[in-house]
């Protein structure tokens, strides 16, 4: 593990009315690793990654990218900084095509006059690129890249969202329960994709309730509890039972936490 975290958070606080979703949460992601984030329902995992990806603004605390403080006031800013996120809700536009969804916010324009002055989109280039990315993910059972996303099954949609993140995340990719609604086969594909992305050197944050999956792919596990990081453990040194016990409050972590 290299010495300097690529993405860091210190003392994040986020309140929704009377609920404190994040209560002084810390977070560290190191280059090239897969970091799993686990925790009970409502522990604040999604709130944490929303804060990291600019989808919500924390009330307190700071976020550092490559050691420099950053302030994302919208998901777009985080994406421009190289942080791509697959949210629990997927964030796809049902009536738009697969291509349009993949490129939303980062459309390619035609070269030359049409693109520069008339801002015309380069649809063929976007189609070719989207097809390539989806094939990499083994998702080319999709016959038509111009199909509306609402005509896809839940698993296929998840695939499109993951492909989008994998294609555009240059620094960090964050996945919030990417396999929750997926079948055995489809989940496997996503896990393979995660490992593949890691092998390209891009670090990944994976939120999941599936312990076998987490222990299979994670390099480190961040255990979130009651709105804050309880500890970070090494899956090779801790058992699933330990992780579950810490996460649910059945056991207190020793000082062995990584």
């Amino acid at each position, binding site marked *: 593990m290299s010495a300097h975290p690529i993405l860091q958070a210190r003392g994040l606080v986020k309140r929704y009315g009377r609920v404190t979703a994040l209560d002084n949460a810390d977070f560290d992601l190191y280059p090239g690793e897969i970091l799993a984030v686990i925790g009970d329902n409502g522990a604040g995992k999604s709130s944490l990654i929303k804060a990291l990806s600019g989808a919500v603004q924390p009330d307190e605390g700071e976020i550092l990218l490559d050691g420099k403080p950053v302030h994302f006031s919208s998901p777009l800013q985080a994406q421009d900084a190289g942080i791509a996120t697959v949210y629990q809700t997927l964030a796809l536009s049902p009536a738009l095509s697969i291509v349009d969804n993949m490129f939303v916010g980062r459309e390619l324009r035609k070269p030359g006059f049409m693109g520069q002055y008339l801002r015309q989109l380069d649809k063929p280039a976007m189609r070719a690129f989207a097809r390539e990315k989806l094939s990499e993910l083994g998702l080319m059972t999709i016959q038509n890249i111009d199909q509306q996303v609402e005509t896809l099954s839940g698993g296929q949609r998840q695939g499109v969202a993951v492909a989008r993140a994998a294609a555009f995340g240059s620094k960090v990719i964050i996945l919030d329960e990417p396999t929750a609604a997926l079948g055995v086969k489809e989940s496997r594909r996503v896990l393979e994709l995660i490992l593949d992305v890691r092998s390209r050197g891009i670090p990944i944050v994976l939120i999941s309730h599936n312990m076998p999956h987490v222990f299979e792919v994670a390099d480190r596990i961040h255990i979130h509890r009651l709105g804050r990081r309880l500890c970070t453990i090494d899956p090779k040194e801790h058992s699933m039972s330990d992780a579950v016990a810490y996460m*649910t409050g*059945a056991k207190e972590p020793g000082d062995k936490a990584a």
Partner: protein
Amino acid sequence: MTQSAPKGQSFEHDLEKSDKRVASFEAHSKGGLHRLQHILHGNPTLVPVIVLLVSVAVFGLIAGGKFFSAFNLTLIMQQVSIIGILAAAQSLIILTAGIDLSVAAIMVLMSVIAGNLAVYSGWPAPIALLVAFVGGTVAGLMNGLLVTKVKLPPFITTLGTWSIFYALNLWLSGAQSIRSQDIDANAPLLKFFGEALSFGGARITYGSILMIAIFGVLWYMLNHTAWGRHVYAVGDDKEAAELAGIRTDRTLLSVYMLAGFVCSIAAWASIGRVGSISPQSFYEGNLQSITAVVVGGISLFGGRGSILGALFGALIVGVFQSGLRLSNVDVLWQVFAIGWLIIIAVAIDQWIRKVSA
């Protein structure tokens, strides 16, 4: 079928020891404005009540005793009563996430029908009214069928039926009002809701009482019967309501029919209020009833808000109009002020709902 108590997967043994908290709750001590926001958030119906009281107070200061007289305050009730009853019907539709551009058109059409039958065709007034009630309900049914069976959006349905009812109204009435004297002579019952209880300077018409009674009954139905819960559920999420076992189409139909029926009661009340039967009146009543509902804090997205809000909304608009008139504000600027009233009232409502930080 017999099987020993399961243990689950290996990593799950320690679960019994886990604690039961889910997320922490904290009470923040914040400034006065935030406290107010929190209190109102808990009791959203209070918002229009407060706005109402504040506007009464403000206009009392500006327009002075004229405004504050018992006569004027009961007058506002009278003036508001028809739009208020329409707003009650409108609230029902809006609670189901619809919108009804045809309420006033149904009302006027039914008053014309009742008047034609009772005054010109010599039918007994109760029968003429009965025909109007049935007519209003059928008009509502037509809206309801277009919404549930043909699956048209309510906005489009009622934009269409508005034109249809309006044309029928002009056709039946020949665009001629029925004179007050003719009604008095042939069917005084039609003007029942124009009569009033007077004491001191106050003059409370039966029409004002009717409005309050209608709100009372609908409030009871919405909050204390299964039907009412279904109306809210359908407005909240129609698909979920259907899956949970509500006959959503039947509920929607009943709402549209009831709204049509309430419009036909408004038709009766409007004869008392106006004194005659005027086919051209209340042309803007559709939008005015929507204004009352939104000023009263009922969400246009359905499923949220108390029908009593519409009553207060109607009163707020009435107080504004009366106050502005008595303060000698030009009509032009009255229109201007009502525009801002709508925006500001709903903005306050949004602020109250957005409790955070």
